[in-house]
């Protein structure tokens, strides 16, 4: 019982700190890549206090619910959007020998299933705001998340086939170095679809701030808006960690495994950096391009990967 509580507390601490680290990294990486000077000043050295300033800013803003909104649903939406990522973090293995919040038998499936629930929060936000741009954004979110869930699940299924298990620690245990070339297509599909699930640029059509203001989050202020942002950063953490665990071998590294968890964290942050990098460098896809990309590129690629995995699996067994 105590063990379980400790593990939950540890997952909570990770949940509360790592997304903030990713947020701060984003500030810095964007500042360097785009020559933005603003975030470099707050607090002196390299703008270390920028995130603190952001937090204070969010906390002091008034929490407004629009008069025409559906109060209860409007207020619940950020929580519904944020909590799935916390629950998912519990099941992601960080190191060998049970270094995981809670080892779930069908962990891969659990993770994908729970992540899918976050859509409901965004739909609730979009609808309850009583704002046509919010509704439009919410509907775009739903359409996008439904479309990209399929390639994500298919790519994950390929890894499960290769490892012969659905358990996340089991998959990392079964990892061999040649998985990286073997599952490369799947890794690409999974990571790209994960990026789209997060609605990060270049897949941020649902929140396109220059066209539909901020999509489902238009009417949100203060802490509730911060929760949505936090869920985005927690999402980066989850997607990067999952990609690292499924496709890059988790705690396996070139050096001996006694510092295994460090490899997982390093890979996760490297992938998070790629996520930020893509945001800074790619233009936004148009809505129809977005959908087309999912259905005509990612899903066929995922199916190809699935077939490839099956063929090689039969060949080597």
């Amino acid at each position, binding site marked *: 019982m105590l063990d379980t509580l400790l593990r939950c507390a540890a997952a909570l601490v990770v949940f509360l700190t790592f997304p903030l680290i990713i947020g701060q990294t984003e500030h810095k990486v964007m500042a360097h890549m785009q020559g933005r000077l603003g975030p470099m000043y707050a607090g002196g050295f390299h703008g270390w206090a920028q995130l603190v300033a952001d937090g204070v800013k969010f906390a002091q803003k008034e929490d407004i619910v629009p008069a025409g909104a*559906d109060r209860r649903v409007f207020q619940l939406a950020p929580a519904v959007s944020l909590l799935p990522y916390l629950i998912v973090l519990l099941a992601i293995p960080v190191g060998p020998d049970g270094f995981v919040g809670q080892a779930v038998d069908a962990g891969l499936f659990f993770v*994908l299933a729970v992540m899918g629930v976050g859509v409901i929060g965004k739909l609730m936000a979009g609808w309850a705001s009583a704002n046509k741009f919010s509704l439009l954004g919410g509907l775009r979110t739903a359409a996008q998340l439904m479309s990209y869930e399929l390639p994500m699940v298919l790519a994950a299924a390929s890894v499960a086939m290769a490892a012969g298990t659905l358990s996340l620690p089991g998959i990392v245990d079964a990892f061999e170095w040649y998985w990286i070339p073997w599952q490369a297509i799947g890794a690409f599909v999974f990571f790209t679809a994960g990026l789209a699930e997060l609605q990060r640029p270049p897949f941020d059509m649902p929140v396109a701030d220059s066209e539909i203001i901020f999509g489902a989050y238009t009417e949100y202020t203060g802490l509730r808006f911060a929760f949505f942002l936090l869920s985005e950063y927690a999402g980066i953490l989850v997607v990067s960690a999952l990609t690292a665990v499924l496709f890059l071998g988790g705690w396996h590294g070139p050096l001996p495994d006694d510092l295994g968890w460090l490899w997982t964290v390093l890979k996760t942050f490297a992938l998070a950096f790629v996520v930020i990098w893509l945001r800074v460098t790619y233009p936004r896809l148009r809505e*129809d391009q977005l959908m*087309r990309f999912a259905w005509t590129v990612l899903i066929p690629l995922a199916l190809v990967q699935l077939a490839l995995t099956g063929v090689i699996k039969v060949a080597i067994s």
Partner: protein
Amino acid sequence: MSALFAAAGPLEPAARSFLSPTGVEIVFLLVGVAVLGSALVAVTTKQLVHAALWLVVALGGLAVEFLLLTAEFIAWVQVLIYLGSVVVLVLFGLMLTKAPIGRSPDADSGNRWVALVVALAAAGTLVTLMVDAFRSAWIDLGAGGGSTRATGTSLFRHWVLPFEALSVLLLAALVGAVVLSRGGGRGKVPAPRAGRLRAGKPVGTPGRAVPAPAGPDAGAPKPADPAPAASTTPPQER
């Protein structure tokens, strides 16, 4: 089902009784009450989107029930398919068509008494069946009976044929839905508007003429252009 239960452990005779429930059984009943309550709210509330959201609660509660029965895999399937997809589709459809904030006076159905009778009859049949089948049987849970391995084994070893038949049935339903939704109305099927991935053109406002863009692929298909859809149009009988 029987194979699943066989994997779950021996069916014990009435060594235990209803009067001494274990903790899991109590939790199971409490969650069941919550599911029933949210399901009732879902069908009685006058606010359409709230109904769908209560459905989320009810289906989530069902997933918890599956977990309590150690059927882990089924629980996650429930979450992935029903919470993550079906309810989202329902919400999507509702919000796209009609979902005012507040009450919808036209949401009342004229045949709600018929619906109530049908629902009660269905529930009565199922409850009677279940009580009759498992009257005094206790199944030992917790022996990994509902694990992914056990589910997969029973599904793909003993129940492959029904599984495949169901798949074909669902596929037929899917194709039927596509045909109905595309050719159900009167008149022509509207042409898809979007172009290729690279060569799509923004659709102009109807009042103003869209200036023809210069370039090799000028002359984007207009919204009413039926030509691209001609090959994909299902045959219609009139």
